């Protein structure tokens, strides 16, 4: 029996108008936050969550240990059947809404990212990275890229094919350099495009490419021969192209269900029609893709933090000490409250970023940095709370810790993203003289 001083019971002593103005109903923050969204986003969030809980969460631990390419492809087609893998274009070209293109372009991505990664960081990444692979087609501003290629890929997906896309920018000698203006100027690029009749010949290597092993389509960036990154051009490759092969697949600390593979290009012929956008516009396209993807990475981090928190809460609710659940103890409550607070703040920042009609560099980087650091703090705090149980795989918290760590690295390390924040706001908040 709760105490009469508990807010929910104390509320009863107020007159009706007072009760109307006093919300003490015990409801989850997930429900409350969802209610603040417009109906279309509410429904989307609910759909993403249902899918994640039914299809991703039950497989999370097993897929963290090992997963086959066929399993990833099968999951992709399941997600596609729900319309989740073709949302960058509105109906009838895809399964998104017109509003998506009219200023809500990041909302589906951030809502989906959080729900998928709250179930499993690795499987979530495997599904989400497809949108990253498709993004250059949409953001190139090239209608041909959208109507000819993106629509074609979406039709394949609608027909039930695992037409997974991947985004390929990172090279063995150029990681941070392909995500930072200053570094880009001196990037040691190895992937080169040589102009030939009716197309280009591409040679080189890309590394750490998410879904590199399972992708059918790849948006890949290459510099022209004897030129720097300013000549970067985006090409649309497909896995059947001669000379394109998958090299080494990395063994990662976390998010293991999504592969990170090397792509090897040995004089691959890419016809002119597969140039995405303008020749030489690849650097700008890359930067803008990151503007759109970094809020989603922020949402990935929120999801992973939530995963750690929810599993810690489950543990504390079900483990008893002195006849009471651990959640009844003040020290446990303090830590859980801290975690919950941080997750709420991180989500609020992601949703704030999604409200910008078009995401800009500082917005995306701020969301990415804050949320990934938060995910690390929350997941390691959850591990500490569980003591020795915290490092056991079966409680899912140590998996969340390993998954969280990657969010501080990919899509530009948090150090590079901090520099991107300042770069974006030079001429606004900041007044610095750039190097010539």
């Amino acid at each position, binding site marked *: 029996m709760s105490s009469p001083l508990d807010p929910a019971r104390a509320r009863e002593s107020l007159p009706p108008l007072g009760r109307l103005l006093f919300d003490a109903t015990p409801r989850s923050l997930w429900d409350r936050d969802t209610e603040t969204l417009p109906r279309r986003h509410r429904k989307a969030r609910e759909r993403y969550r249902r899918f994640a809980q039914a299809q991703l969460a039950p497989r999370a631990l097993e897929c963290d240990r090992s997963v086959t390419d066929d399993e990833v492809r099968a999951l992709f087609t399941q997600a596609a059947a729900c319309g989740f893998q073709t949302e960058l274009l509105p109906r009838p070209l895809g399964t998104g809404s017109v509003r998506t293109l009219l200023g809500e372009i990041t909302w589906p991505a951030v809502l989906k990212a959080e729900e998928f990664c709250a179930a499993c960081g690795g499987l979530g990444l495997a599904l989400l990275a497809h949108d990253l692979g498709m993004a250059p087609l949409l953001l190139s501003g090239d209608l041909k890229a959208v109507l000819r290629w993106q629509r074609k890929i979406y039709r394949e997906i609608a027909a039930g094919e695992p037409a997974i896309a991947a985004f390929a920018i990172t090279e063995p000698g150029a990681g941070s350099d392909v995500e930072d203006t200053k570094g880009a100027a*001196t990037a040691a690029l190895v992937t080169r495009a040589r102009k030939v009749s009716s197309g280009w010949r591409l040679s080189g290597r890309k590394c750490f490419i998410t879904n590199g092993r399972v992708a059918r389509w790849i948006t890949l960036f290459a510099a022209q021969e004897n030129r720097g990154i300013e000549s970067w051009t985006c090409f649309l490759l497909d896995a059947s192209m001669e000379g394109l092969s998958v090299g080494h697949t990395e*063994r990662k*600390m976390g998010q293991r269900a999504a592969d990170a593979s090397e792509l090897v290009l040995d004089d691959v012929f890419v016809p002119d029609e597969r140039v995405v956008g303008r020749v030489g516009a690849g650097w700008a396209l890359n930067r803008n893709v990151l503007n759109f993807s970094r809020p989603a990475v922020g949402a990935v981090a929120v999801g992973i933090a939530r995963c750690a928190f929810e599993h810690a809460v489950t543990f504390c609710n079900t483990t008893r000490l002195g006849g009471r659940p651990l959640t009844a103890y003040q020290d446990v409550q303090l830590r859980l409250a801290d975690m919950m607070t941080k997750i709420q703040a991180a989500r609020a920042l992601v949703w704030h970023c999604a409200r910008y009609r078009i995401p800009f560099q500082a917005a995306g980087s701020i969301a990415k940095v804050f949320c990934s650091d938060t995910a690390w703090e929350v997941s390691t705090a959850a591990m500490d709370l569980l*003591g020795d149980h915290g*490092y*056991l795989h*079966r409680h899912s918290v140590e998996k969340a810790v*390993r998954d969280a*760590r990657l969010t501080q690295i990919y899509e530009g390390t948090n150090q590079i993203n*901090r520099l991107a924040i300042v770069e974006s706001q030079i001429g606004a908040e900041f007044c610095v003289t750039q190097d010539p």
Partner: protein
Amino acid sequence: MDPSDVAAFTAAARRFADEVIAPTMGVGRDGDLAKLDRVLTAAEEAGFLASARPKSPGYDYGAWGRAALEDGPAASLAVLEELATACAGVAACVHFAGLGGSELRGAKRRPARASVAICGAQQLEVQETGLPALLDAWLGPDVKLAKNGRTARLTGRKPFVYAGPDCEGFVVYARGEGDRWARVWVPADAKGLEQVEVGLRMGLAACQVTHLELCDVAVRASDELPEADPAQCLGRLWLGLCAIAIGNGRGALRVAHRYAAERRQGGGLIREHAAVQLLLGGAESRLAAGGAALRQVASRREVDTRLAAMLKARLTLECAQAVTDCLQVLGGYGYMEDYRLEKRLRDALTLKSMAGRPDDLLRLAATTGSER
């Protein structure tokens, strides 16, 4: 041991880490575990791994050997720290074997490899105050030694007991008569003892971690050990984990420095970038401060258990932060198994969580601090 002997022994441990342990680390997610037994045998022969056998090379000066009981823990901690620069898991095996061996010093039983089962479920209720009562709660009421005439039986459960491979048995701390602490040797093949594997876990893969289920285990009179202060054993346990955490961090820092001196981004070596310098400098300072604190505590002959608890809580946190900063220097490569930094981070995080939740250790420090 006088300081020059400690320095020489420490240098020998460093060479052992570099020449024997490190080469086994290149294979598999956690190093070549198939070679673990060979490495530990070599550690025993080199005198780093202490056992209860007087004729074993490490009996006197190995980690938690006789000298640690007589001269204080400094030399033991230095050895553990050096071994951990190559692999925290191997260092942990040496640590637990040494703890087990030190508990059996002077006993009839002299296994080559033992361990100690001391911690209970570590669930501190808020009303405990004072170090002895808190330690009682820490060790837990889980295991009881019941005597009936000439027979004695052990019943209960010790969770999360660490040991190296081929552990022949455990020194179990149990509630004895009059609520006193009894120490009992339980061979690994004792009837009624079940070792339950804890399952897949994050780090320190070289160690075996089991729950000991003791179901009416018959205890011979010769296996009951003389009374000893559990606070000293707990303190040594925690200090050893601190030393391993620092060594693991130093190993990570070495990798990060080497990488920063070779990797070029932004037109120059990354060690010239402020962002990388801040990460490396942060890691250096955390490890330096932690090492200094540990040496300060280790300079005393008797282990101050309260200080050991505080160090364990604080220092493992700082070392984990140092390792994650080192990993960040390597960017995407740091996250991949091949570069061996993600393993160090997993080990660092495991060291932080094991053998006492950080919050419980802090509460132990706070509650006992009010006595001063």
